[in-house]
């Protein structure tokens, strides 16, 4: 199928096919590319959406055969938050930078209206970051840590009946932004017969509501058959467990109940192995490619159109991104200059006002000062007058005293000298 497409494409371009007379050696090209990818390392981001306690962390632990984190999330978060953690895994020579994003508090609130919005915002934020990097003038895309979500594992509660409204709503909002793979969590609580009916019910609900979940690709012959078969088994009913139980003479990952042991890697018990196969071993590259070429391009197109860029101008002439960008830049620059002018004017105005107020205050103060000075002067004059009066009185009084002294001494001369001496002495004491 693919080769005929290529042939048709080539014919259109009038390109000849050449036959070589010997061995050239470029069949090592895929190996060269693979070696380069190994050096660069791979990056894979999984988003797990599901209610608290539904088994998201356990499933991821089981999928990647590690113990990532230990603690349980609380049920009392006021709104949904997304928690991302990055790990580096290595298997033989392949390095994988794995990012797990968990929704904390999903489905816990009493009012669940705002549950899906933080998830959509997070996915958009990752696209935005990549778009920003891509639009930069000096960019480094090859060292950029790609944080765009490649796959969303949606955990459905094993009620056995149908999808919850919250599930439908969330998936409907996410299906155009990310590859969704729905899984039935805690599948050991659903019996086999119920499981079949449940799966059929779920898929028909998804289809009738127009939710587009990720379909495993069937265009490559080598994996088409497997993928097509798996497409019919969606959603996978999974059980996660890192505990080991002895079954027969081997230790296997399982959950032990009084009535039996549910083995995680037993295909009769649950679809865990299928999920691992599909997610990691067969389609990881396709998931990344779909994210980049479909979801990211869609986001990019919407975002750029929103900003006013188009490919085709008003008269159907092609408009280059550059021109629109320049026009916008010019516009923004004009806007900025205008605002600057405005602000300058306002500033000058304010300064003037303030100056006027200050001048007023100064004048008032001056007037007060004058007034006080005058008062002070008046007081002083009054005091001066009083002092003069007092001085005059003192002079008058001393004069009077002097005359009375003279009079007194004359009267003593008439009476006797002893008395005079005493009195003189007394008087001299008084004088």
């Amino acid at each position, binding site marked *: 199928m*693919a080769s005929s497409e*290529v042939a048709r494409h080539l014919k259109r371009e009038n*390109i*000849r*096919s*050449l*036959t*070589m*007379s010997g*061995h*050239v*050696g*470029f*069949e*090592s*090209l*895929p*190996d*060269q*590319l693979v*070696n*380069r990818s*190994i*050096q*660069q390392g791979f990056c894979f981001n999984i988003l797990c959406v599901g209610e608290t306690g539904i088994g998201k962390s356990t499933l991821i632990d089981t999928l*990647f*055969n*590690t113990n*990532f984190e230990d603690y349980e999330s609380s049920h009392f978060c006021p709104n949904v938050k997304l928690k991302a953690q990055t790990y*580096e*895994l290595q*298997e033989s020579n*392949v390095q*994988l930078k794995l990012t797990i994003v968990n929704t904390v508090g999903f489905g816990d609130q009493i009012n669940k209206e705002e549950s899906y919005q933080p998830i959509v915002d997070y996915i958009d934020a990752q696209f935005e970051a990549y778009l920003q990097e891509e639009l930069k*003038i*000096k960019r480094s895309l*090859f*060292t950029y840590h790609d944080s765009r979500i490649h796959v969303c594992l949606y955990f459905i509660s094993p009620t056995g009946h149908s999808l919850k409204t919250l599930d439908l709503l969330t998936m409907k909002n996410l299906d155009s932004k990310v590859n969704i793979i729905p899984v039935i969590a805690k599948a050991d609580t659903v019996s086999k017969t119920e499981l079949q009916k449940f799966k059929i019910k779920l898929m028909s609900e998804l289809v009738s509501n127009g939710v587009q979940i990720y379909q495993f690709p069937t265009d*490559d012959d*080598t994996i088409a058959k497997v993928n097509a078969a798996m497409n019919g088994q969606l959603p996978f009913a999974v059980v996660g467990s890192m505990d080991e139980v002895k079954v027969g003479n081997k230790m296997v990952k399982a959950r032990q109940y009084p009535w039996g042991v549910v083995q995680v890697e037993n295909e009769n018990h649950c679809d865990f192995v299928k999920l691992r196969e599909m997610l*990691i*071993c067969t*389609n*990881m*590259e*396709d998931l990344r*490619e779909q994210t980049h070429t479909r979801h990211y*391009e869609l986001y990019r*197109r919407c975002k*750029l159109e929103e900003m006013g*860029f188009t*490919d085709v*101008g008003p008269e159907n*002439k092609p408009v*280059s*991104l*550059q021109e629109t960008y*320049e*026009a916008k830049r010019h516009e923004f*620059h004009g806007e900025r200059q205008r605002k600057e002018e405005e602000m300058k004017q306002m500033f000058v105005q304010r300064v003037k006002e303030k100056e006027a107020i200050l001048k007023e205050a100064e004048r008032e103060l001056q007037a007060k000062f004058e007034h006080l000075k005058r008062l002070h002067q008046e007081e002083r004059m009054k005091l001066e007058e009083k002092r003069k009066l007092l001085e005059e009185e003192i002079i008058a009084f001393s004069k009077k005293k002097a005359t009375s002294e003279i009079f007194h001494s004359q009267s003593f001369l008439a009476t006797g000298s002893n008395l005079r001496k005493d009195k003189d002495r007394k008087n001299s004491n008084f004088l």
Partner: protein
Amino acid sequence: MDPLRRSPSPCLSSRPSSPSTPPCEMLGPVGIEAVLDQLKIKVMKMGFEFNIMVVGQSGLGKSTMVNTLFKSKVWKSNPPGLGVPTPQTLQLHSVTHVIEEKGVKLKLTVTDTPGFGDQINNDNCWDPILGYINEQYERYLQEEILITRQRHIPDTRVHCCVYFVPPTGHCLRPLDIEFLQRLCRTVNVVPVIARADSLTMEEREAFRRRIQQNLRTHCIDVYPQMCFDEDINDKILNSKLRERIPFAVVGADQEHLVNGRCVLGRKTKWGIIEVENMAHCEFPLLRDLLIRSHLQDLKDITHNVHYENYRVIRLNESHLLPRGPGWVNLAPASPGQLTTPRTFKACRGAHDDSDDEF
């Protein structure tokens, strides 16, 4: 050359494992390495593209070399003196083929430059070539900045330019030096000594040393560039290559019988020069470099370094260059706004492009 040798990747720092990305131990196989097979399937389906340009004076054996490299009649060879007039000006002539080997499809585009250096006055004879290379970058850039992009942007950018140095035996000529200086900043250049069968082994070595010295004196950084060596393995490998560059090559597209074997070679009265014999010429080295081991690397450097440099210059000077239909004359904004400096450092390279003209 071992075809499975690790191909060095350009300009990539090994990803730092910050404290927030702890390495985790897996308790058993998960199947992550299956992603390599997935990758292989994907690229086999997509096919590969490779664009190569050969530059040199006429009669140096460029067309024959291309035919020998890809073991097919890429060009219908036109030997001189058969009524084909030498072009009066430099023309660029591209041809595209699809070749397949063991399931791997390669879309090969070869650009020839007949007339280069053939005129009396060869001033600015590199301008058409630079123009062509930049045109390919421009085409890619225009595709990349569209709103609705194609899934796979067709890559017509020149990945490698093979420069044929005439076997004078002395040193690089002024024309060579001028050309190499300008081109090594825009594209990966691999210089080769053409028609090396006119030089003896000693003469070859002396010529090679002198050319290397010339390149060093004039700061011409040919492929593989030293600044893009990733780690110690690459350094060792590439240093070995750098010692032998420029390769002394001989091209031949006719087969002759030697000791019962059919080999590609040139038959002369004094012997048969076997093209693939390392004792006779270094064609196998060139072929291995270009095809078997460094093809991906050539493409990577073109995409990550040369194209990015072009893009930076282009986006910075966008208000000066004329554009297609519907272009609105926007007066450049007053100074003081968005002063992005004209001189900049190429990514990891010490190339100063301040006086480049496009």
